[in-house]
Each structure stands twice: as structure tokens, then as C-alpha cells.
């Protein structure tokens, strides 16, 4: 398996989540992920399997938390991956289900806020 690397997975996921939130999925390169997590490329691959694996780890944390930043990752997932990735779509569906009837409105509101188009605060 290689020399064991020691890093705290939750810290790495948190750092990666911030980048995915700001730059999007395709927009976040492995170079940048290495930079923001401080973890070697090989270690990221060994731990998460792929950039997608790392994003999924971030998304799962995001949809279980109520922090405002969580919705950013959900919007990235919906916009960039859900249509072509069954697993991502399933995670998004579950998160949206939890909002019930207000889901579309809530998502629209968050998307506008993210775009800086909401009056007042989010």
C-alpha cells in the first residue's frame, strides 16, 4: 500500500469542501486540492480513490450539517454532477427530500444568494 501517511481526514475534507464550494467541481484542480489540503497528491488518491471520491466525502458531510456553507456544495453537485452521476444524484435527492415542498424555493433562494442577487441576508 505504501508508506502510511498521517493526516486527519475530517480536516482534509473540510479544506477541500471550501475549495469545491468556491471553485466548483470541474474548476477545482488536483493541484489546488493538494495546495489547500496540504496533503500529497498520492495520499489523496490513496485515501479517496479519486477527486470524485473526495467530493463525495465533502458532499456527505455537507448534506448532514445545517451550516450555510453546506448548501454551496449541494448546488455544485446539482449543477455539475447530478445529471451524469447516479450516486451524487441520490445524495442530492435525499437532501432535497428533507426540505419537502419548499425544496425548489429554498434552492432557488440559496442559488440567488450565492450569486449575490438576494436582497437582505441569506
Amino acid at each position, binding site marked *: 500500500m505504501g*508508506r502510511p501517511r498521517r493526516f486527519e481526514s475530517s480536516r482534509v475534507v473540510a479544506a477541500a469542501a471550501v475549495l469545491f464550494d468556491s471553485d466548483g467541481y470541474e474548476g477545482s484542480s*488536483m493541484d489546488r486540492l493538494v495546495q489547500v489540503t496540504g496533503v500529497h497528491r498520492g495520499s489523496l*488518491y490513496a485515501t479517496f480513490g*479519486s*477527486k470524485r471520491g473526495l467530493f463525495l466525502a465533502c458532499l456527505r458531510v455537507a448534506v448532514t450539517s445545517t451550516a450555510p456553507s453546506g448548501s454551496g456544495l449541494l448546488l455544485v453537485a446539482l449543477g455539475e454532477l447530478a445529471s451524469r*452521476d447516479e450516486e451524487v444524484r441520490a445524495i442530492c435527492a435525499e437532501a432535497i427530500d428533507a426540505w419537502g415542498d419548499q425544496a425548489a424555493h429554498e434552492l432557488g433562494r440559496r442559488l440567488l444568494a450565492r450569486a449575490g442577487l438576494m436582497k437582505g441576508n441569506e
Partner: protein
Amino acid sequence: MNNVTIDRSRGMLVVEPRRLNKLWGFVRRIEVSLSQVRGATHDPGAAQEYKGVRAPGLGLPGHKWVGTWRKDGERHYWNVKGGRDVVVVEVSTPRFNRLYLSVEEPRKVVDAINAAIAHQN
């Protein structure tokens, strides 16, 4: 350059180096059971990193890397030309831990591989 396909009937990921590279003798057709594939990533920056020790392989820095490299106790298969369209496939086989492959349509290859293995997690 590589042809990367998924043979669903046998549950295998098949990597076939294109003509010229095979003649170098450093690379070969590789078949990996999908159960041993952990993920695929389009990673244009991967070719710029330190690769480790050639074992055996041929490297033309900035241009081409063909063969096996050992790094951090792992064995990596390289068949990369240039750097932009590089797909990194994380595997756990007795022979290799990771494959670095130049392909024509990186996103398509990555999506196909990740979709093929998604159900086994």
C-alpha cells in the same frame, strides 16, 4: 496514448497502449478487475510531479513517460504523452497501485470508470 475500455461482461477495466508505445517494451496491455479499481480522475497536473524511480521505464521530461515507476513503496504504471489529457486511475492490484494514462477524451473515460465502480461501494 491509450485505449481505455470497460468490459462489463467480464467486469474488467482494459487499458491498451496504442501501437508505437507497445514496441518500446515498457508498457503492456493491462486488465484490472473493476473490483480492484478505486477511482479515476482527470488530472492535468499529475505529470509535473516527481514520479519516483524508473523501474523500468523511459522518461523524456516534459514530453513522455512510459513504463513503471516506484515511489513511496508503490508501483505506478505510466503511459503518458504531454500532460493535459492525463487520467489517474487508483487501483489495488498485486502489480500496480496507480495508473497514469494519456487518453483522448479524459472526462468521458473518467465518468465511465467511476460509473462502473460506483455500485460496488
